[in-house]
């Protein structure tokens, strides 16, 4: 089956998912991001790689934080950035997703950064662009439903590589609501592609999707067992609405079993790092002492995120 994010030469023309990306492509993005880290330290934080190009941030689902980091990344590449809060405009008037895309194509867009509540929406856009012969426009998935959040996955890999250097000796645990998490899926694909020998998923059965084993993941329901000897702990945000149905009884009970406290973290390796895609729910999935502790690398993740998004936005239009 043709992978719609790669061109005939196997080069990345859209970033839709980490699944199916060759290891070299991921490594190339991380290496490119490393070269951009220096730009962020400069007095003038700009490189002219996307000068004259238009980046459209299409957020069909609200997210100030992710949109902001994409905006900063695009501006540091000297692109013109247009933010469209679609949730409140066109689609509210009944325009279809692809009508919106056609209109924006007519405005000479070069790159779409897409956030959508439906899994697969960026694929639909990429396939549409191919169908109407607009191979010059590129799509970067900024999170689609529960499916994928590839730039978050990549910045997580950047963070892990920064602190741990070698992927092939690591034990990585992902803790929490994996069922609803696009971040978890992207992390899992990235980690297994980069050769991490043991990826663990920790959570109650209600928050773990079926068939995780087929994705190369070891499942743990007991957090103490799951955290034992881990090098990296990735905590996931627990949405408040998960508490309203039958998935979980209460935030309190969740925290007692799956919240990351200093005591539980002590079961991991002494030099283990703690990551979180943000925004955090202190006292729900993570104790403040851990969130603010020496092992947390949550704020560096944000900084790396800008470099990684610069890398993606500079690589994709070149192919």
């Amino acid at each position, binding site marked *: 089956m043709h992978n719609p994010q790669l061109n005939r030469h196997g080069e990345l023309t859209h970033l839709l998912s980490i699944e199916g990306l060759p290891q070299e492509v991921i490594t190339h993005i991380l290496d490119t991001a490393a070269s951009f880290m220096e730009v962020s330290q400069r007095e003038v934080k700009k490189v002219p790689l996307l000068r004259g190009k238009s980046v459209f941030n299409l957020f069909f689902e609200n997210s100030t934080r992710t949109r902001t980091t994409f905006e900063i990344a695009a501006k540091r590449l000297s692109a013109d950035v247009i933010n469209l809060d679609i949730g409140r405009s066109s689609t509210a008037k009944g325009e279809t997703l*692809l009508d919106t895309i056609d209109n924006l194509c007519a405005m000479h867009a070069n790159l779409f950064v897409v956030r959508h509540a*439906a899994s697969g929406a960026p694929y639909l856009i990429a396939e549409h662009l191919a169908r109407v012969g607009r191979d010059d426009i590129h799509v970067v998935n900024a999170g689609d439903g529960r*499916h994928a959040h590839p730039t978050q996955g990549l910045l997580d890999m950047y963070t892990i590589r920064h602190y741990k250097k070698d992927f092939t000796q690591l034990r990585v645990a992902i803790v929490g609501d994996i069922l609803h998490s696009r971040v978890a899926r992207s992390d899992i694909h990235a980690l297994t592609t980069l050769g991490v020998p043991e990826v663990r998923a920790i959570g109650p059965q209600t928050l773990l999707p079926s068939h995780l084993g087929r994705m190369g993941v070891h499942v743990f329901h007991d957090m103490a067992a799951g955290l034992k000897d881990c090098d990296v702990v990735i905590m996931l945000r627990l949405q408040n609405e998960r508490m309203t149905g039958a998935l979980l009884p209460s935030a309190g009970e969740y925290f007692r079993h799956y919240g990351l406290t200093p005591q539980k973290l002590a079961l991991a390796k002494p030099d283990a790092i703690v990551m979180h895609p943000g925004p955090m729910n202190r006292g729900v999935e993570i104790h403040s002492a851990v969130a603010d502790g020496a092992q947390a690398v949550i704020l560096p993740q944000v900084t790396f995120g800008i470099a990684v998004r610069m890398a993606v936005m500079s690589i994709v239009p070149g192919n």
Partner: protein
Amino acid sequence: MKIEIRNGRLIDPKNRRDEGASLFIAAGKIAGIGQTPAGFVADQVIDAAGAIVCPGFIDLGARLNSIEAELAAAVAGGVTSVVVPPDADPPLDEPELADRLVHRAADIGKARVLPLGALTLGLKGERLAELAGLAKAGCVAFSQANRPVVDTEALLRSFEYAATFGFAVWMQPQDHWLARNGIAHAGEVASRLGLAGIPVSAETIAIGTLLQLARDTGVRLHLTRISSAAGLTQIGKAQKEGLKVSCDVGIHHLHLTENDIGFFDSQARFDPPLRTQGDRQGLSAGVARGVAAICSDHTPVGADDKLLPFGEAKPGATGLELLLPLTLKWATAADVDLATAIARITADPAAILGSDRGQLGEGADADVCIFDPEASWRLLPEALRSKGKNTPFLGYEVQGKVRVALVGGTQK
């Protein structure tokens, strides 16, 4: 009008006939097989050399969004009788609506239309529709299409009421609560793609409930669009125990699995969802054994309703013109002989409907399909009469082409 169809291979599963024989038609009925009836002089001779002559197909489920085009599609696909589910807009819950549909179909004069009346008003699963009135207007059975009756007491009462009059009830087994948020089979693909899942238990739990209520009430139950191997096994067991329950499987579920969703291909969105390879094999084996009949589950969906993210796209595929080629393709893959395959879309559906059609015995209505089993054609939008061009098989080369369909002895 007297017609002789000669030189064809006559396959009539109901009457266990598979031979080279001529078929004689007079006054809309089968007048003879093999031997020319006394005094028969054909007004028209149809040469069926190289073709199969068999009963016209009876499709147990086809939605007719634009009735003229879809009934033309039916006869183009060799389908001479079409069972129409009640989930039209508005739902078929009043005798006048059924009456209008039957008359409209008669005016168009293509395939026969056998409407299913709504079991409950507005298909809401609450208040009973006027079943006797609907039956009088031509409804052959009662159904909720793919809508649930959430209230089990309402379900029990509707079965009791239908049983009172000897009406059959057709239900698509799907537990409302387990299925309501789902868009794909709760399996590996849905987990990977981040699609909300519908577990097999949504089907098996509903089947359990429906079978139990059928036992208790004595209603004649037909279960539609079975999607799981476990579900079909359950029904097979009930049949063995002597319960009068029948079922059908949509033709796409005999060919496709969750893996065909690929990268969110909305053409592979079905209700019920495509399941695993094991389910597909179980369904195929069950259909081969005769536990279930095959139907097209024809659901024309406009391009705009498919050009949406997977979960927002309308489920279903065009099927009337694919019923024959996909049934033949299934027969080859499952190593099922031609007569058995044809039985699944002729004699078996007729038995489910309690109809005398679906066979070519003397005196039967001359609903006949003549098709070339070897002829291949490319499945392109322009090759379809149906307004629904939505198919996961678009661009495929398929085998089996209808030459002629006769309904009541008239060429359509």
